[in-house]
């Protein structure tokens, strides 16, 4: 049984009286442990898919299932709990909280979960070592490079051991060398930890490193390498 299933999912945004389709009749199944990239140009619907899977948005029609949870219709409180325990987010612009240190940012979800401070710090220290940013724990985001900030964001996404990590253009703000390094790191984490990675990109070098590529255009699925497309 796939971990993530989108079945004929449509999402239409409303701008006043104007209906803007972001995703149309989109179906996708992702198995646990996959490392999948959603590829396509800007406005193709990649972020919409990630938002729907992450429970940040609701579909206009169709279903979005993650495990046995119907993410598209679950009540807000269930969705908050789902995001807290089962999903990790990595954003294009890192979105670290500026007033917290790198370690505090990484342990933020653990704090929300009520994990005791020593346990939080132990897990974050472990992740920082794995992500090669050990020693930067007490730095503020403003004192870190883009690559370091994104590694902290990855640590934050993985700290609570989620089922799935959703990354929206995680390398878009990084130079090509750092972007490739980060992709390799994410692949290694995927292999080592067995976490499902679903991320979006329009960068061919990034797309080339994915095991499965799902291509979107104008909100429709146009190719899926897993299906031989």
């Amino acid at each position, binding site marked *: 049984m796939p971990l993530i299933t989108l079945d004929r999912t449509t999402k239409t945004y409303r701008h006043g009286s104007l209906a803007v389709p972001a995703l149309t009749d989109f179906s996708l199944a992702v198995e646990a442990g996959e490392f999948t990239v959603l590829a396509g140009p800007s406005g193709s619907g990649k972020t919409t898919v990630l938002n729907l899977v992450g429970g940040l948005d609701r579909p206009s029609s169709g279903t979005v299932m993650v495990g046995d949870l119907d993410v598209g219709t679950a009540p*807000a409180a269930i969705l*908050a709990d789902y995001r807290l325990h089962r999903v990790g*987010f990595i*954003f294009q612009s890192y979105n670290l909280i500026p007033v917290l*240190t790198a370690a505090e940012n990484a*342990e933020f979800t653990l704090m*929300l979960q009520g994990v005791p401070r020593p346990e939080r710090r132990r897990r974050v220290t472990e992740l920082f070592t794995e992500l090669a940013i050990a020693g930067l724990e007490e730095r503020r985001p403003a004192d870190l490079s883009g690559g370091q900030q994104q590694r902290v964001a990855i640590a934050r996404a993985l700290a609570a051991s989620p089922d799935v990590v959703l990354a929206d253009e995680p390398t878009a703000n990084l130079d090509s060398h750092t972007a490739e390094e980060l992709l390799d790191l994410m692949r290694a984490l995927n292999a080592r930890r067995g976490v499902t990675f679903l991320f979006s990109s329009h960068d061919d070098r990034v797309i080339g490193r994915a095991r499965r590529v799902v291509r979107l255009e104008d909100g429709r699925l146009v190719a899926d390498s897993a299906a031989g497309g």
Partner: protein
Amino acid sequence: MSAISYAWRSLWRNRRRTLITLAAIALSIMLVQAFHNLSVGVYARMIDDGVRAGSGHLAVYRDGYLDGREETLSFAPGVLTAQVRALPGIAQVLPRLYLPALAQSSYDSRGILLIGVEPAAERAVNPFLKELPEDGMLRDLDSRDAVIGKRLLDDLKLAVGLKLVVTAQHRDGTLHSELLRVRGVVKTGIADVDGSLLMVGRDRAAQLAGMPGEIHELAIILDRAADESRVFPALATLTANRRELSAVSWTTAMPNLANAIKLDYASQKFIFVIILLIVTIGVVNTLLMSVMERLREFGVVLALGSSPARLRRLVLLEALLLGTVAAAVGCLLGALATWYLVEVGIDLKSLIPETLEFGGVVFDPVLRATWDLAWMARITVYVIGLTLLAALYPAIKAGRVTPAEAMRHY
């Protein structure tokens, strides 16, 4: 890192804005505390002066006397005076007789208020009589000595040692006169009092009016004004078996003073409300701006799994921290200001006349505060509560953020 630490650091993202808001809250607490304490001090002084020269903290009258000060409504205190003196917390008990009369000198005559008093007891508490030299006070209850208001003395062209005749209506309806000699002169600063006051021994006044052993007022001075609510029921119990008598507090016996203080404090309260309202608007502005600047961050926090309620609590926690720190600073400043106003006070001698009258008593031009710690604590709690109230809308706003929208648009 804890929620408190996150809230505290968030509060200081815009250091200048937070400092300005904190200063506004702290200064408002200081102003409100200091001015309240100053008012309480000034009112306490006025009340003390008023009750000592006037009706006492508590008083006993014949029913209806206060309505028109009808001199026929007198009563014989009997054992009541001694019983009241025996109550705990009583500093002095002053039996008095008030008689409308006519004072005549060789040159002129004036309508006066003849007051029959117990000289030693009055001198012990009355601030104007205390200032008289030893040989300027009434010698006993029955002497022909008179203490006279300064203006009346001048109007009648009298001087200490000179004689005057006082005529009053006897209980039998006839007019009776007494020859008195001026022994002392008081100057209260209150024109009406100084122009009509003539004080004699109680027995002399009672003899003139044909009401021996009777009085119109049993004025009671307490050791501490705050004991009034405790002593009043005991006094009411003592007078319960004398149905013609009523025990009243100074607010009933001296409504002019009580109302003047009420009116003055009401206007001050209005200013306090305005100050606190302005501060509340400042807090709303600070927290709302802080929330609006962080909508994207709130979207991220929600995406990471926080509930909207948790976000709301975070904003309220920021407000609580802001309010608590500001309250601590404000209390410190308020205490310093009050200390200065208690120890040094504000001298208005150069600005107001020394005989300025307020509510029937002379306004002391040196204003001094009194510590009202319970009220200081209460206003501090109110301000913290107001800060939390001001944070409600920003908190609700933060809780309404939708993560996808926030990250898309901010």
